[in-house]
C-alpha cells in the first residue's frame, strides 16, 4: 500500500530531535498498550504483518498526528474488531458485553519469562533463485495491500549481498492469505541508483528483499 508509513526519501519532516535521558515510556498508558500488543500477539489472531497493515491503513493525517503507541492502540482496536474478538459496542461501553465463543489461552506470567520474538524462517520449497554477488532489479510493484518493498527501492538495480534464509512472506501473511515462505536477501544499492547523480557518493543502502520482489538485472 502506497501510504504515509513508507517514508524513505520523503522531504519536509524537519530535524531529528533526540531526547536526553528519554524514559522507556512517557506515560503509564504507553506501557499498557505495548504490553497489550504483546499479550494479544500471543493469541496469534493475526500475523505481525497483519498488525502492521492495520496501522498502515490509518488515514495519513491520523498516522502523522498520533504518537507511536496511540497508533498501536488504534491498530489493536481495529484488528480486534475485525476478527470479532471485541465489538464496537464493547469499546464504547468499556466492558465486555459477551464472552468469546472459544477463548484462546491467554499469555501468563510464566510465558512472559520466555517471551521471545517469533521465528519467521520456514522450510524452503525450492533453492534460492539468486546468489550473493548477482545483479538484480527490484520490481515496479504497487499493491493496494501490505508489502515490505519500500517505494524508494522499487524498479532499482542492486546487488545481492547475502541470502538470509526462507521466511514468511509478509505480502500474503498480512492479508490472511497464508505464509507462502520466500527466500529473503540483503540487496544493496548505490546511492546513485536510488537518489540520482547528486547523491552522496559514499553512501550505500540495503533493504531486506523477498524473492518475489526481484528479477535478474
Amino acid at each position, binding site marked *: 500500500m502506497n501510504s504515509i508509513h513508507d*517514508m524513505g526519501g520523503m522531504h519536509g*519532516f524537519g530535524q531529528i530531535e533526540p531526547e536526553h535521558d528519554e524514559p522507556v515510556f512517557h506515560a503509564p498508558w504507553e506501557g499498557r498498550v505495548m504490553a497489550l500488543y504483546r499479550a494479544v500477539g500471543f493469541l496469534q489472531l493475526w500475523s505481525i504483518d497483519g498488525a502492521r497493515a492495520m496501522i498502515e491503513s490509518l488515514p495519513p493525517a491520523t498516522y502523522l498526528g498520533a504518537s507511536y503507541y496511540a497508533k498501536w492502540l488504534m491498530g489493536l482496536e481495529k484488528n480486534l474488531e475485525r476478527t470479532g474478538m471485541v465489538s464496537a459496542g464493547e469499546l464504547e461501553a468499556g466492558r465486555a458485553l459477551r464472552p468469546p465463543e472459544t477463548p484462546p489461552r491467554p499469555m501468563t506470567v510464566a510465558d512472559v519469562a520466555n517471551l521471545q520474538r517469533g521465528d519467521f524462517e520456514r522450510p524452503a520449497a525450492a533453492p534460492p533463485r539468486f546468489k550473493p554477488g548477482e545483479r538484480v532489479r527490484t520490481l515496479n510493484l504497487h499493491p493496494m495491500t501490505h508489502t515490505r518493498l519500500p517505494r524508494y527501492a522499487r524498479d532499482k538495480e542492486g546487488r545481492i549481498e547475502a541470502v538470509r534464509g526462507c521466511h514468511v512472506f509478509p505480502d500474503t501473511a498480512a492479508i490472511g492469505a497464508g505464509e507462502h515462505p520466500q527466500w529473503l536477501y540483503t540487496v544493496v544499492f548505490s546511492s546513485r541508483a536510488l537518489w540520482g547523480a547528486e547523491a552522496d557518493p559514499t553512501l550505500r543502502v540495503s533493504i531486506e528483499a523477498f524473492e518475489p520482489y526481484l528479477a535478474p538485472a
Partner: protein
Amino acid sequence: MDHDHEHRDGKPGHSEPGGIQARVRALETILTEKGLVDPRALDRIVDAFETKIGPRNGARIVARAWSDPEFEVRLLADATEAANSMGFSSPVGAHLIAVENTPETHNLVVCTLCSCYPWEVLGLPPVWYKSAPYRSRAVMEPRAVLAEFGVALPPDTQIRVWDSTAETRFLVVPMRPPGTQGWSEERLADLVTRDSMIGTGLAKSP
C-alpha cells in the same frame, strides 16, 4: 498527560486522540473480562522492558566482541547464537545480525516502513527512531542525520545504511575507542551507548 516530546516540534496535529488513558483502560478491561489477557502478565511485560531488557545487553555483547576475537567471529557469523551464549534473562530471537564499524565503513540502521529494532538487545526504540524525520532522511542523507547527533565522519568514510524491511534485526558494533587496552568487559560496556549500536553515535572515549 506528559506528551511534551510529541509537541516540542510545534507542528500542528500532534495531539493525542481524546481520553487515550481511558481508552487504554477500557480495552484492557474488556480483554481481561473476556479472559484474553492476564493483567499480571501485562505488569510483567512492562516491568521487563523498564528494568531488564535494554541497551545494557547490547553493550555487554559489544564489549565482549572487543575483548574476545573468537566471540567477535561468532557474533558476526550468527549474532543470535552469540548473544544467547551470554545468558541474558530474556532470550534473543532469531535473525539478529551484527554489523561492524571499521575505519573504512560506518553502519547505520533504520526502519523506513515502521519501527523494526533489535528490542532484545537494545530495549524499546527511542521516539526519534520511530519519527518521520529519521525514517525519511536516514536512507537519503545520513551525513546530515549524523550531524544532528553531533557525529561528523571523515569525508571518505563509506556509509552503509541498513533498512530493516524484514524480520532480520541489526546491531551495529561500534569501533573500540583508543586508550582502552587491558580494560575489563564491564568497564568497556560503559563506553557503548545505545546510539552507537544504532549507528547514530560512536562509542564514548575514555
